[in-house]
C-alpha cells in the first residue's frame, strides 16, 4: 500500500464549551469527554451531539496528559482517556485508558501513589467457595491459571471525573461493584455493572517506571505499601527459600558424616598428684603418638575436687616440629548443707578441643594451680586424657547461623511489607 498515512487525530469543537477536542482512537472510542468542561459526546455521531452536559469549572490537571505516549511491557501506548473513581470515604483512583492499534486497550491505574497496569483477563478467574469467612460466606480466594489470589477488597466505586475517550458509555456518577484479589505483585480486578462484567489481570508498576515511560515528573507520593506491591525479590523468594533449605540439609548431612567418621578414641591417659609444693611448677605427660583421622585433639581434665578448684595452664607440643597448642582449663566443685538441704555446684570434668593437630609424637606440658592449700594434708589427684578425632559442632552452628541470615532478612522484610499491605484491607489475614 503506498497511500498517504491516514491522519491519526481528528479535532472538533466541544458542543458544551467550544474548546477544541481531539479524537485519538477513532473506531474504538464510543464516547469522548471534553478535557476542558467534561461534556460527553458520542464518538460515532458525525453531528457530535451532546450525550451529557457537564460543566467543570476548570481544566483538571491529569497525572499523565491525554495523548502522551509511553512504552510499558514492550509496547508503545497512548493515553486516550482518564477517569477518576472513588469509594467514599477513601481517596480517588486515577485511571488512564491506554491504546495501541495492534494490542488494544489497557488501564494504568494510580491509587495512593501506587501504579498498576491492567489487561482484560483472557480466561475468567474462578472464585473459590469457602465458608464462614468473616461471617459473610464470601469467597476469600480467586484462582486463575493455577495461581491463587486472596481477596483484598470489595465495594462500590463511583466515577467522579472523565476526560478523553472511552470504549463504553461512561458517565460521571456511574457506579460499579468492584472486587480485588491480590497475590505477589499481581492482582485480579473484577468490575461489574448492570450491563457488563469484566475481569482484569493487573501487574504492579513502579512510579519511577511510569515517570520514565511517559516522561512525566509530578506523581503523587506513595502511601504505605500498595495492595499489589511485590515484596523485595518477590520473584526469587521461592528459589531463595528452596536453596536455603537444600543447603541446610547439606550442612546437616555433612555434620552427620563428619560425626560418624569421628573415631573419638582415647589415646593417652595419665594421672597426677597436686600438692602445694607443685603449685605453678611445670610438669609434663609422657609422650604419646597421635594417629590419622579428623585432626583435632580433645584434652580432658578430671579432678575429684570438693570445695576446691583446680586449673591447668598447658600446651600440647609436637616433638618433631616443635609446634605448640596452648590451652587453659579448670574444674571447680562445691557442696554443702543449708536450710533447704544439701546443695552442689560446679563440675569435676572439663574439656578443651585443640584443632589442626596433625599425626605425630606429642606430649603435654602442664602448670597446675589450685586453692588446695597447706591446711590440707595429702594431695589432690587429677587426670589428663587425650582423645583423638572428636565430633565438633562449632562450625556446624556457625554455618547454620550465617546461612540463615539472608533468608531471615528476606522473610522479615517480606513479612513487614505484607502486614503493611494488609493493614489497608478489610480482609487481612493478620486479623
Amino acid at each position: 500500500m503506498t497511500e498517504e498515512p491516514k491522519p491519526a487525530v481528528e479535532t472538533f469543537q466541544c458542543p458544551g464549551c467550544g474548546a477544541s477536542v481531539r479524537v485519538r482512537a477513532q473506531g474504538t472510542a464510543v464516547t469522548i469527554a471534553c478535557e476542558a468542561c467534561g461534556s460527553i459526546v458520542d464518538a460515532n455521531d458525525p453531528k457530535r451531539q451532546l450525550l451529557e452536559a457537564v460543566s467543570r469549572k476548570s481544566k483538571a490537571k491529569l497525572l499523565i496528559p491525554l495523548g502522551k505516549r509511553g512504552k510499558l511491557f514492550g509496547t508503545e501506548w497512548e493515553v486516550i482517556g482518564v477517569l477518576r473513581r472513588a469509594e467514599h470515604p477513601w481517596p480517588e483512583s486515577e485511571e488512564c485508558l491506554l491504546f495501541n492499534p495492534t494490542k488494544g486497550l489497557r488501564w494504568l491505574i494510580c491509587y495512593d501513589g501506587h501504579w498498576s497496569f491492567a489487561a482484560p483477563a483472557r480466561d475468567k478467574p474462578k472464585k473459590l467457595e469457602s465458608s464462614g469467612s468473616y461471617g459473610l460466606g464470601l469467597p476469600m480466594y480467586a484462582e486463575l491459571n493455577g495461581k491463587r489470589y486472596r481477596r483484598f477488597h470489595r465495594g462500590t466505586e463511583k466515577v467522579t471525573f472523565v476526560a478523553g475517550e472511552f470504549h463504553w458509555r461512561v458517565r460521571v456518577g456511574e457506579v460499579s461493584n468492584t472486587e480485588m484479589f491480590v497475590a505477589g505483585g499481581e492482582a485480579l480486578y473484577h468490575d461489574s455493572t448492570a450491563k457488563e462484567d469484566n475481569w482484569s489481570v493487573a501487574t504492579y508498576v513502579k512510579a519511577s517506571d511510569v515517570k520514565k515511560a511517559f516522561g512525566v515528573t509530578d506523581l503523587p507520593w506513595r502511601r504505605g505499601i500498595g495492595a499489589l506491591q511485590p515484596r523485595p525479590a518477590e520473584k526469587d523468594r521461592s528459589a531463595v527459600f528452596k536453596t536455603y533449605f537444600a543447603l541446610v540439609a547439606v550442612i546437616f548431612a555433612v555434620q552427620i558424616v563428619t560425626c560418624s567418621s569421628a573415631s573419638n578414641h582415647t589415646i593417652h591417659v595419665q594421672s597426677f598428684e597436686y600438692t602445694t609444693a607443685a603449685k605453678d611448677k611445670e610438669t609434663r605427660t609422657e609422650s604419646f603418638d597421635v594417629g590419622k583421622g579428623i585432626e583435632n585433639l580433645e584434652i580432658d581434665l578430671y579432678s575429684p575436687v570438693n570445695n576446691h578448684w583446680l586449673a591447668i595452664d598447658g600446651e600440647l607440643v609436637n616433638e618433631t616440629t616443635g609446634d605448640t597448642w596452648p590451652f587453659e582449663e579448670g574444674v571447680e566443685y562445691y557442696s554443702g548443707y543449708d536450710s533447704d538441704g544439701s546443695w552442689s555446684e560446679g563440675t569435676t570434668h572439663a574439656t578443651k578441643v585443640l584443632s589442626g593437630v596433625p599425626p605425630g609424637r606429642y606430649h603435654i606440658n602442664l602448670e597446675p594451680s589450685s586453692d588446695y592449700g597447706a591446711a590440707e594434708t595429702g594431695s589432690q589427684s587429677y587426670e589428663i586424657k587425650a582423645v583423638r578425632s572428636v565430633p565438633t559442632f562449632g562450625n556446624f552452628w556457625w554455618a547454620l547461623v550465617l546461612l540463615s541470615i539472608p533468608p531471615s532478612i528476606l522473610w522479615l522484610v517480606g513479612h513487614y511489607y505484607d502486614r503493611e499491605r494488609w493493614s489497608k484491607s478489610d480482609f487481612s489475614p493478620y486479623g
Partner: protein
Amino acid sequence: MTIHCPSCAAEIVFRSDRTVYATCRSCGSLVVRTDLKVELIGKEAGLPNDLSPLCVGAKGKFEGKAFEIVGRARMRWEDGAWNEWYVLFADGTDGWIGEAQGEFTMLFRTGERVSVPPKGSVRPEQEVRIGKSTFVVTDVKDCTYVGSEGELPERPQLPTAGDANPRTVSVDLDGPGLAFASIEYSDDGTQVYVGRIVEWEELEMSGTRRIEGWS
C-alpha cells in the same frame, strides 16, 4: 474475474469464486454477480475513519498458511462498532478476522452441526456445544451494518424497502483456552463461526495501513 461497474464502468475484480458481492472503489456502488450478470444493489456511504492497521490487500499468515485480505464489513451496535475482514487463503479456503478495540480473532464458518439457541432466548452464560468443545456466551449484541469495501461472500444486511434498519443479532462465545466463536442471526439465516483469539505478531502482516504517528 473482472467485471465493469454497472454504475461508472470502472473495473471490479473478483479474486475468488466465493465472493459474489463487491464495492466499486471508484463510485462506492455495491454490486452482486451471478452466473449471468452483474447487478447494482446499493451504494456504500463510505466507512468512517478508524485506527485499524488492517486494510484490503494486506497479507498475512495464520498457522503457516498465507492469506490476503480481500474485503471488509463494518458492523455497529449501541455502544460500539467492529470490523470483519474477509480473507482468502492460498489453498483456496477462506476466513474472517474480527477486529474490535485493537483485539483480533480469526474465525471460520463451521461445518459442524451446531444446536444453536433460538434468537430470542440467547443470553450470556449459556453454554453451546460446537464440535468437541463447550463454549459459553459472553455477549449478545443487536447490531446493524455500517458499510463495506472490497469483496464479500455474503450479502450485507442493507436497508431494503421493507426494512429500513435490518438488525442482526451477533453473539460472542468464549471457548477453552483462546477458542472463540460467533453466532450471527440475520434475515438470511443463522451462521456459526469458530476460531480463536490471535495476537497481532502471530499474523506476520505485511502491506498494512500506515497510521500517522504509529510506526
